[in-house]
């Protein structure tokens, strides 16, 4: 389990770095991409509960360390999203990439809205803040839909490299 968590953590670090670089360039146009759902979806759909939960929590802490939010905020949001996806995953053909992308998009939508409720300062004009937030959300969803198949494939290949057979994991592997 440890090696699987480390592999997923390494993939999360890579994704966080790439998104950070993308945001660095997009900052010129005051745009921000946030793909929290992507850090959770694959592990929640394809791996056992404990491995996925630890990986999602660590990914959240990784993002928390770089952002001015209370440490643990994104960690627990990712953990909650993981619990929801894990509970309902038996009802969908979870091995399909398209299902993974849709789940990641939905998870990202929910997480983005919760993060907005937490982070948007109530003192400033809320309507303008939410309008800006929705632009960021729209662009984030587009970016997520574009990179999700690559990220899922990379995670799958990395796990296969350490001898993990994803078919072994079932709903009852908690």
């Amino acid at each position, binding site marked *: 389990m440890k090696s699987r968590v480390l592999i997923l953590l390494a993939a999360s670090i890579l994704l966080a770095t790439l998104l950070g670089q993308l945001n660095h360039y997009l900052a010129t*146009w005051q745009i921000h991409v946030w793909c929290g759902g992507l850090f959770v979806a694959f592990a929640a759909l394809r791996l056992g509960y404990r491995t996925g939960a630890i990986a999602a929590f660590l990914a959240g802490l990784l993002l928390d360390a770089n952002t001015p939010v209370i440490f643990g905020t994104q960690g627990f949001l990712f953990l909650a999203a993981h*619990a929801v996806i894990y509970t309902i995953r038996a009802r969908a053909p979870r091995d399909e990439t398209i299902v993974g992308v849709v789940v990641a998009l939905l998870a990202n939508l929910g997480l983005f809205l919760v993060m907005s409720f937490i982070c948007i300062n109530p003192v400033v004009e809320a309507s303008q*803040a939410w309008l800006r937030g929705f632009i960021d959300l729209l662009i984030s969803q587009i970016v997520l839909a574009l990179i999700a198949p690559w990220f899922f494939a990379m995670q799958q290949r990395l796990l296969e490299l350490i001898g993990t057979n994803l078919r072994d994991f079932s709903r009852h592997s908690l």
Partner: protein
Amino acid sequence: MPSQRFDQAKPFLTLGIALVAWLLIPTAVKRFARASFFELQAPMETTASFIRDLQDFWSLKTRSKNELIEAGRDLARLNAAYESRLQQDAVLRNELERLGRVLKLPIPPGYRAEPARVVLREFSSWWQQLVIRKGRNYGITAGAPVIYAGGIVGRVKEVYAYTATVELVSNPGVRIAAVIEGDTRPISYQGGINPSYGAAVGAVEYVPTDIFVAPATPRRLVTSGLGGVFPPNLTIGYVTRLEPSTDGLFKSGEVSLDSALSALSEVTVLVPDPLLPVR
């Protein structure tokens, strides 16, 4: 059936237990974990910024010698102008120190200017911050003001081993005591909403009612020096709109910040140093 229901609730039960356990963890442990996670990612971000610098270097290498000669000539002219300004500045500083001694005024702290490259920029609707490529290794301290050629960038929020995060002046959580240029009455500045594809904006409050601005004739907003974080007379932005506040005693309005704020590649941290003369 009950066992299946319990099985379904198990992830949420685990989540609840983890949350309670997290709340019981001492703050020092969390702080250490946060710094560790940050330092884990810092080398990659720093490497990416070095690669960007290398790209810039190689793109500059493609310039012709004539372009470099012209740039050198322009730079020499600028240097000559700055030399002259420095001499005037030294005369004024001496005069200020002399008057301070005569009037026995308290000496404000001096600052050591520490230029730093920008590693990461983040401009979201939630927060606006920069990561710079200098930290404890250069004596950067939390709370130190950060400036650039156009005025204020923000203040250092957190300092790590060799990077630091800077909270931008456009961040909604930032408040600064400011004055309108040419006026001495302090007003309150706060970061505001940053619309996409446009310059960042802020807001001012408690503006005296006898101050008037129009979009065509904006007034420069500068730091007041009150509060001790920012030195006085640094540009924050330009007040473009003012309207009476709800109580009618003051005005509140909008401040237009420099659009270069979201494209900075180098900033200067003013590290407080009581041994240095005031600048």
